[in-house]
């Protein structure tokens, strides 16, 4: 959706003339509400939901409760974000297990929503939790759906109940009933019933789904819906609610770039909570659903929280503190640089990380050109140095550089670039560690810093990198991490914790996973120019 820019960009544009105004006039609000409406429609939120939603936002924006501390654009984004989270369900709901096992979970949805894959993921997830799930092949419609479930079950290492070969033969209601008996005798405590995909308008198949529901009396009926679905989410969700009355929703294919407005539509129209998100083709790509993160995604504010969480997993506070001290005392060496880079690698794919940043959706092309191999090459260069050279880069004369280039299979130019980049980075980090704030927008009155903000500078960084043959890989990622931390309102303390030179350690103690109003405001400030 890059072509349309993010909602925050547009809001910023709408309000550029209103900077000095302290309060929103009805006309301002109307303009903003129009932008929000468009953004929501672009994100595939269903029209009736958009209408209710914008009406609610309008009312609140004109009300007296607005936060006087924020500028108008920030106020509106805050209101929108609050409302989104409210609709998406303030908190997550867990699966409910039956008092007398087996617990029966039934899956339903359109064709191609991802039910069979989800059945495997859910089974694997439950198995890891100490349950003994049984997968039931009640999709006898689609050719070879039964085989697919068998393969998935094997991959997940769980049992499967498939008495019928499928391909249009057999009675799914009977299969489901027999599965319950089988589960009781074979002592499975959870039964997951995979049903055939069906369209909301197909009365006959909806009745079949209702019959399966009646036959097995499930504790949970999960409605699996594709995150890419458009306006049809409303009629489909309504049809399934009337047909099988699901108890929870699973959003699939969230690893794509769909903004997932369907989540909002379904939650708002049916009032059922979204319980899980499915984020890839591997059986482990499955996670509980976080409403606040989804709100950010719909508004394209980026999935900062996930990023921070991942960072927290890889960086400990102590490590960050040690690094910060090294910066401050000028004892940061290429060895530390290498260690930092390896830590970044532990966080997973750099591309994936960058993708979570606000506005990053527009960077797809640059991301694609981002070569993870650069890191490997940089590593090779550093590892081809002697320990003395790593500690004192000044030692590196021409012949040493040539040796290193040969040893690492690179060129002298690349070695040169790495060394100069390291020196620049060390210098910048030092300034920051001492409490200085070079080139960070949105951190207070810094006139002239205008366009340097957030996504724009990231894009520049990425683009710049593309041009050079030498690896620049460490930098944008680190910068990304810093910006993420900063966006959360983490300011460098004067003490050692100013490890926010690498931001991540500093973010850890904040600990609070819910974005507070302040954080969102800071985030918005960071996004605005």
């Amino acid at each position: 959706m890059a072509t349309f820019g993010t909602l925050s960009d547009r809001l910023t544009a709408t309000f550029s003339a209103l900077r000095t105004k302290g309060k929103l006039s009805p006309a301002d609000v109307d303009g903003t509400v129009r932008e929000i409406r468009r953004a929501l429609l672009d994100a595939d939120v269903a029209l009736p939901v958009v209408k209710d939603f914008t009406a609610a936002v309008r009312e609140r924006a004109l009300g007296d409760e607005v936060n006087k501390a924020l500028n108008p654009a920030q106020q509106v984004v805050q209101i929108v974000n609050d409302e989104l989270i409210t609709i998406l369900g303030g908190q997550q709901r867990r699966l409910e297990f039956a008092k007398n096992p087996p617990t029966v979970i039934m899956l339903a949805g359109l064709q191609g929503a991802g039910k069979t894959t989800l059945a495997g993921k859910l089974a694997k997830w439950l198995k890891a939790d100490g349950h003994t799930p049984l997968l039931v092949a009640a999709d006898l419609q689609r050719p070879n759906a039964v085989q697919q479930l068998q393969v998935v079950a094997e991959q997940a290492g769980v049992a499967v109940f498939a008495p019928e070969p499928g391909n249009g033969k057999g009675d799914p209601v009977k299969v489901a009933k027999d599965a319950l008996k089988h589960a009781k005798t074979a002592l499975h405590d959870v039964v997951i019933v995979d049903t055939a995909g069906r369209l909301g308008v197909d009365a006959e198949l909806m009745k079949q789904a209702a019959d399966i529901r009646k036959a097995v009396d499930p504790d949970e009926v999960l409605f699996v819906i594709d995150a890419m679905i458009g306006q049809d989410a409303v009629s489909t969700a309504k049809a399934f609610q009337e047909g099988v009355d699901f108890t929870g929703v699973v959003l699939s294919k969230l690893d794509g770039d769909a903004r997932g407005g369907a989540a909002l539509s379904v939650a708002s129209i049916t009032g059922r909570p979204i319980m899980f998100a499915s984020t890839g083709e591997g059986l482990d790509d499955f996670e509980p659903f976080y409403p606040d993160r989804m709100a950010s995604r719909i508004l394209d504010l980026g999935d900062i929280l996930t990023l921070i969480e991942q960072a927290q997993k890889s960086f400990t506070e102590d490590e960050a503190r040690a690094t910060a001290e090294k910066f401050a005392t000028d004892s940061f060496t290429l060895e530390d640089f290498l260690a930092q880079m390896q830590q970044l690698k532990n966080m997973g794919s750099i591309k994936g990380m960058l993708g979570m940043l606000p506005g990053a959706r527009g960077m797809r092309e640059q991301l694609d050109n981002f070569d993870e191999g650069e890191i490997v090459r940089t590593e090779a260069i550093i590892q081809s140095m002697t320990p003395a050279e790593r500690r004192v880069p000044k030692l590196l004369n021409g012949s040493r550089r040539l040796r290193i280039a040969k040893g690492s299979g690179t060129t002298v130019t690349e070695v040169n670039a790495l060394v100069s980049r390291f020196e620049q980075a060390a210098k910048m980090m030092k300034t920051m560690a001492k409490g200085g704030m070079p080139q960070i927008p949105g951190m207070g009155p810094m006139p002239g810093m205008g366009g340097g903000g957030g996504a724009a500078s990231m894009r520049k960084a990425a683009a710049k990198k593309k041009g050079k043959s030498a690896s620049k890989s460490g930098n944008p990622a680190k910068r990304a991490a810093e910006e993420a931390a900063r966006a959360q309102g983490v300011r460098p303390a004067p003490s050692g914790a100013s490890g926010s030179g690498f931001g991540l350690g500093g973010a850890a103690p904040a600990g609070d996973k819910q974005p507070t109003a302040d954080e969102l405001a800071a985030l918005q400030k960071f996004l605005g120019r």
Partner: protein
Amino acid sequence: MAEGWRLGGALRGLFASPTIDDDTWDDLETALLGADFGPDITEQVLDELRASVAKFKTTDPRDLKRMLRESLEERLAAHDPTLTLSNRPAVVLVVGVNGVGKTTTIGKFAKFLTGYGRTVVVGAADTFRAAAVDQLATWAERAGAQVVRPQHQGQDPASVAYQTVQFAIDNNIDIAIIDTAGRLQTKAGLMDELGKVTRVIEKLAPIAEVLLVLDGTTGQNGLAQAEAFIESAGVTGLVVTKLDGSAKGGFVLRVQQQTGIPIKLIGQGEGIGDLTGFTPHVFAASLVP
């Protein structure tokens, strides 16, 4: 149950009112947005219609309805929906994101072609998803087409594609259709794999058509899908599936308009005969009855 053709329903009420007023325009906008045309196309169509209404000074909603249908039809008909399958063998590569109905479409397409007396071989280059090969083989059997299977699980899809085309050449088969694994357009590595598949096929024979299958229930993300697949696989035509449900698939108009890639086939059910060529006036008429 869902209300069926929602745009149709919304418009029926709308065009029953005696004159064109503000409500008419509001309802029209609602109907267009509800059919997944997206805010851009909706705005364009509305502007165009407002201009026409002003120009012809009409107040009759029936005129508006006719103009709407014509406007949509004209937009839909902007590109040529004919399939070019004149090479022998004509190689058709089918691509798309997960769960849009690629395999089902191939089954129906093979039946469609065998119905015209063409010999068809399908290549199961979806070596990733569990049981995808069997699913395709079942369809091929129903359609009376031959099938080329991978020799082992997880074989390189490009090599299966190559073998399929080779098989078609050796056995003098008219058309080779190659199934690929579903992939989200954001997975750069998987998208590159498609590029490899096309390069490898082209060593043997030029590719006649690369069909991108789009799920009719998709929203505005369909455009992002199309753009990514055009870039990595050189898509030459669109197939819209699952139009037998309550979804209108209005987003395909936006896709066609912005990418210039024509819609070529329409899938409307799980039966083997439920695939038709794309005819703009039929599609427009189903949107605006």
